[in-house]
């Protein structure tokens, strides 16, 4: 329990306090010197409160405050376990001290370590403070290099560039509009291959050779849009401004189910280029981790094991519930099946296991770009290619890679640090001895949890 002092130093004849910790019942405040005070013994957590001064509801505008769904403004306080917020008030004219205030105990003693719900609430409060008070501009690297493709570039060249430059997505520049108008992603490559796979040996390669990206984007709308155009309709480019908060940017990425979002400049500058960079959840997470290291309190949840935190997608045999079903695929599965699952489940990757069920690797949408090397896609049929074959092509191009994993006994801090490593999009949770896949934790899972 933590002694928390509340004060109203702005005058009045009488003052009371009510808050979420009192069940919104009023408690009178004692006059200590020139200000009204009351002290509560509270467990760590985030609480809202208001003052009733001379019969009028008031808030202290110098303290943090929130607005609820009904438009009511309340002050908000974060009570932390390792901080002693009750400090002796400065000596007033009467030379009184804290003992003259009213001390109330309104809740049973309860250690924060025994209440993960409170820990999560406190941690989310700390995280939201960081994400709301920092802008995406601060996350943009001091110096960065970005490839941009002209929309008139032939699709085949575009995918070749993406492969050679190691890019899973690229912004598209429209000369007529003089700005970034869209993104070309690995998903486009998958959709195009599936559209062309029936006759790829006859016309596919020529079609890729001749068609500009802009024509492909139009064709995609017609081919995958459906009769009502609902499935894939033309929409304006999703983007954020350099002054947007990290919370807004993260929500934009999550809600639109995209992996990154272009950052546009609020004010045009002399370069004439409105585009600043691409924002990713990983960049935000890396920044968040650096800020959390500076935090003194409210971060005890970081040292909790994954076992106790409702985060990630889990296999049914673990007994843990999750919003979506965790799929795995055998190495011998057709690549087409793998792509089907990725598109149907709207996920970016799928764990690949061997005959014994042990984790072998993870196949992700971006891995499909390996087929662009030397026009491999023009010489294969997706139905006849196994996941093993596709991974072999990947290994030939980039070499055998490390598959990033963790255990349920790892702490949240270790998971966050693992996901901050450049190039790591997800961690596969495995059982240590058998390497059975127990779950998967993606960047999206992390931010869905952090943002509540």
């Amino acid at each position, binding site marked *: 329990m933590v002694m928390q002092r509340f004060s109203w130093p*702005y005058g009045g004849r009488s003052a009371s306090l009510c808050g979420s910790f009192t069940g919104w019942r009023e408690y009178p405040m004692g006059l200590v010197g020139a200000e009204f005070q009351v002290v509560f013994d509270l467990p760590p957590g985030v609480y809202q409160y208001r003052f009733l001064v001379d019969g009028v509801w008031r808030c202290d505008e110098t303290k943090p405050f929130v607005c609820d769904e009904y438009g009511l403004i309340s002050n908000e306080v974060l009570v932390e376990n390792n901080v002693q917020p009750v400090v002796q008030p400065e000596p007033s004219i009467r030379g009184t001290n804290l003992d003259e205030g009213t001390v109330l105990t309104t809740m049973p003693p309860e250690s924060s370590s025994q209440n993960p719900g409170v820990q999560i609430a406190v941690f989310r409060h700390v995280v939201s403070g960081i994400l709301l008070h920092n802008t995406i501009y601060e996350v943009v690297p*001091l110096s*960065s290099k970005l490839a941009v493709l002209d929309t008139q570039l032939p699709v085949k060249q575009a995918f070749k560039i993406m492969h050679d430059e190691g890019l899973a997505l690229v912004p598209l520049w429209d000369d007529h509009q003089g700005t970034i108008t869209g993104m070309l992603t690995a998903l486009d490559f998958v959709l195009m291959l599936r559209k062309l796979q029936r006759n790829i040996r006859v016309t596919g390669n020529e079609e890729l050779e001749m068609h500009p990206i802009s024509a492909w984007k139009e064709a995609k709308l017609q081919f995958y849009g459906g009769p009502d155009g609902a499935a894939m309709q033309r929409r304006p480019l999703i983007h954020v401004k350099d002054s947007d908060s990290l919370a807004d940017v993260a929500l934009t990425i999550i809600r639109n189910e995209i992996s990154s979002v272009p950052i546009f400049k609020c004010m045009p500058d002399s370069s004439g280029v409105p585009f600043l960079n691409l924002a990713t959840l990983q960049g935000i997470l890396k920044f968040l981790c650096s800020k959390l290291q500076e935090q003194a309190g409210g971060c005890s949840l970081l040292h909790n094991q994954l076992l106790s935190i409702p985060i990630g997608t889990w296999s049914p045999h673990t007994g843990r519930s999750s919003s979506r079903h965790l799929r795995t695929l055998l190495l011998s599965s057709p690549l087409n099946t793998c792509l089907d699952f990725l598109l149907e489940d709207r996920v970016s990757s799928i764990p690949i296991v061997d005959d014994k069920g042990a984790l072998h690797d993870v196949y992700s949408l971006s891995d499909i770009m390996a087929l662009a090397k030397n026009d491999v896609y023009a010489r294969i049929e997706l139905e006849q290619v196994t996941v093993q074959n596709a991974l072999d092509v990947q290994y030939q191009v980039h070499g055998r890679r490390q598959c990033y994993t963790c255990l349920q006994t790892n702490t949240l801090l270790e998971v966050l640090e693992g996901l901050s490593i450049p190039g790591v999009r997800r961690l596969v949770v495995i059982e240590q001895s058998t390497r059975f896949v127990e779950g998967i934790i993606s960047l999206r899972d992390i931010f869905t949890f952090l943002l509540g």
Partner: protein
Amino acid sequence: MGNASGREEDAAAVDGDGADVEDGGGDSSVRSSERAFPPYGSVGANHVRRACSVGVVGGGGGAGSPPGSPGHSLSPRMFVPQTPVPPLQRAADVTPVFNQILMNDQEEEYDGPPQKEIPSLIVWTLGGKNVYVEGSWDNWKSRKAMQKSGKDHSLLLVLPSGVYRYRFVVDGERRCLPDLPCETDAMGNAVNLLDVNDFVPESVESVVEFEPPLSPDSSYSFQAPEDKDFAKEPPALPAQLHLGVLNSQNSEESCARPQHIVLNHLFIEKGWGAHPLVALGLTHRFESKYVTLVLYKPIER
């Protein structure tokens, strides 16, 4: 005006240095409406600025209400008259007597007529905890502590017109600002130069010395360039422009900070592999971030 640090600040925004604030509960009034600009032609106008009086509007609010946002509190500063050693005079100001003093390199005080003293702001922008400044205005005898204002450290000095040498002492280490005028002394130490000047022309056009001389007619010819002129090799590209904007790796991590020389230059690589396309590279700065964009465009057939 030349803006050495790339920021555009009002000459009056000096974080309280030289602020002239009235006491009392009411609104403070601006004592001087005159805006002072840096001397024309002074380099690094952002770092060495003339001071001017600044007024502060005080936030009211009754005792029974939470206070509003606190304004910037500007503390008045008392200017103590200083007795500096003679500064280096400009050629126009130098008298024969003073010439002799300078030539003999003497350091005795000059008993000339009292000169008008001019407030000059010195700003250190490169961080540090404890920043001091020392200079030739008192023959390097003392170090003056600089006031921290935001990320910068600043100090207002009141000096007679002239050119002074000075340097900063940042956390015990002697430093100078490379963006500002500087020179190397006999010992090989770099020092900054401070040009204290009370002369501010109202417009450049009114100053005769700024008028360019007319070119003599004989310097023009009517000969059009011939084939032999075009056959000459083009001038060599400066070595620093060979830094490959286009050749550096795309990286999820931060790239190396580009040299300023490559900013806003268009780099072109024609033919990418066997493909008929062109790669255009451009590095530009946005506030404090550098962005290199490589645009791949098809070559029009």
